[in-house]
């Protein structure tokens, strides 16, 4: 159930955040930050490879099907990154990314 999708930058601010209308954004932001702590722990213990992150993700509570979701998200994220006009640290304004996220949220919800 994807009620909320967020992409968080290294500096711990969201590059992209979208939630379904029912969910309170603030609450979700809090949850995202708390989950970040978990991620941070794992990161500090392991390496920084992208692959590891994906495994980390699996290592968290989420069930396996979200792995596909994460992969889609990640692919879209890399596509955004590939855009030379995108400065790392900017909010993600890519329409393709938006569409992908929307489709993911619709599909799973």
């Amino acid at each position: 159930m994807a009620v909320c999708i967020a992409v968080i930058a290294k500096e711990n601010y969201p590059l992209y955040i979208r939630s379904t209308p029912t969910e309170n954004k603030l609450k979700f932001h809090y949850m995202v930050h708390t989950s970040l702590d978990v991620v941070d722990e794992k990161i500090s213990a392991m390496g920084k490879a992208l692959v590891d992150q994906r495994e980390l993700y699996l290592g968290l509570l989420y069930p396996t099907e979200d792995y596909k979701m994460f992969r889609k998200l990640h692919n879209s994220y890399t596509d955004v990154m590939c855009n030379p006009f995108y400065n790392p640290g900017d909010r993600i304004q890519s329409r393709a990314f938006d569409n992908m996220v929307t489709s993911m949220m619709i599909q799973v919800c």
Partner: protein
Amino acid sequence: MEAAAAAAAAAAGGGCGSGPPPLLLSEGEQQCYSELFARCAGAAGGGPGSGPPEAARVAPGTATAAAGPVADLFRASQLPAETLHQITELCGAKRVGYFGPTQFYIALKLIAAAQSGLPVRIESIKCELPLPRFMMSKNDGEIRFGNPAELHGTKVQIPYLTTEKNSFKRMDDEDKQQETQSPTMSPLASPPSSPPHYQRVPLNHGYSKLRSSAEQMHPAPYEARQPLVQPEGSSSGGPGTKPLRHQASLIRSFSVERELQDNSSYPDEPWRITEEQREYYVNQFRSLQPDPSSFISGSVAKNFFTKSKLSIPELSYIWELSDADCDGALTLPEFCAAFHLIVARKNGYPLPEGLPPTLQPEYLQAAFPKPKWDCQLFDSYSESLPANQQPRDLNRMEKTSVKDMADLPVPTQDVTSDDKQALKSTINEALPKDVSEDPATKSGLLPPPPALPPRPCPSQSEQVSEAELLPQLSRAPSQAAESSPAKKDVPYSQPPSKPIRRKFRPENQATENQEPSTAASGPASAATMKPHPTVQKQSSKQKKAIQTAIRKNKEANAVLARLNSELQQQLKEVHQERIALENQLEQLRPVTVL
């Protein structure tokens, strides 16, 4: 009249079978509409009595209704002009540039819908509607309401292109774009639609005719432009293959006329790259990346496109659209697509939601196999000139044709390098003057919807410096300015900045335009050509030296800029690493403390 109706219906029958038939007309409607259509087409043919049968005989599947009678008919429906505009757009006449049977029938149905109080939408015509009412003197429409359909006892279907429906929305958008940019253009004078098979015909010239005036477009489409939609926009009954063959023959037969009309238009008109544009884009690509089969890296492309002065989010979006494989680099077709989108955006077109089919890399590669001209032209030019000085003139956009483009290389090849540089410098001289003195003519020169000439991205400062460096040659610029002030303004005014490379082109196009386009073509071109040799003799050497120096500086500049961007990227990365390390340090510190 009945014969005409029969002929029209029979011709229409030749076209059905291909595509879904969403538009259903009842017998009465079919009869009435075909009558009305015959009347309008007949009026186009030149006489109400003899017109329809003639038109039917001559080209059964290709009758078009002229704008005049159709407009009268629509006005007779007593709907507000706004509604009629909408109807014209929706039915596709605006898109195709004429009223073929399909468009006409749809329009009539929409009129009926509007008169019944329904909104002017495609969906409205799906349901049963009363016949449209027209307050005409003859009142033919009313009279014929009651006549039984002679032709078929069944419902007649008017299939229209599958793409039409989907493209309507897009057409509306694009038509609105056209409208905003060309309020003077009548709704009927829009470019023809492009059925899918149409697109396979590589007629990319005349692209900018989209933005030409209504007057220019009126005569051409109605007579000569065969509506390829025509056979499909017909009622049921005939084999599907026949109309396609018919269409193919029509395409071939009218390709010549199309050249003359220079009016090749497609629904994605703004997104279709013409030959000149393609040339220009390829040249620009070469300037960034000598190997046309390789690609431009993201940072290089970024620097280049940033010069177009579009906002970063827009550029980002354009990149997103054009970098189909999302690899952070642009191949030649991707680059052309991106450039074209930038040009479109600069001309005011809103960016599309998705990459239009004519800008897809596969399409571009298929439509434009490696241009061999480029090689020839490059070889023929002196190597001192930058490779992309091909004289693709912007004014040619107004009257493109394969013929013209074939002519183009010939005169320029004859010009020596000295001449070219002399000409080039004359443009430099002319530039500040033209730009400063004719800002108003900028808009006037451009046809109401601005043509989409290749927009040069490189900076303005280069030209300005070049102009300063060449203070002499007052005579040549004045001549050039006199001879074709309008034409020069077009290339100058549209792009606020112009690369040095392209200065050659406007001069050539000025000289060449005089030949084909101006009334006093012979004398004018002779007059302008004569002063040039004398001018060039004076300071060719100086110019040469300055040109080379400028080029070198430019190259160095580009290299440094690239280096700069790369270093900045590295700096960013290092910054991030540093932040990460500091975070780690923070995490470790409490441990040690405790």
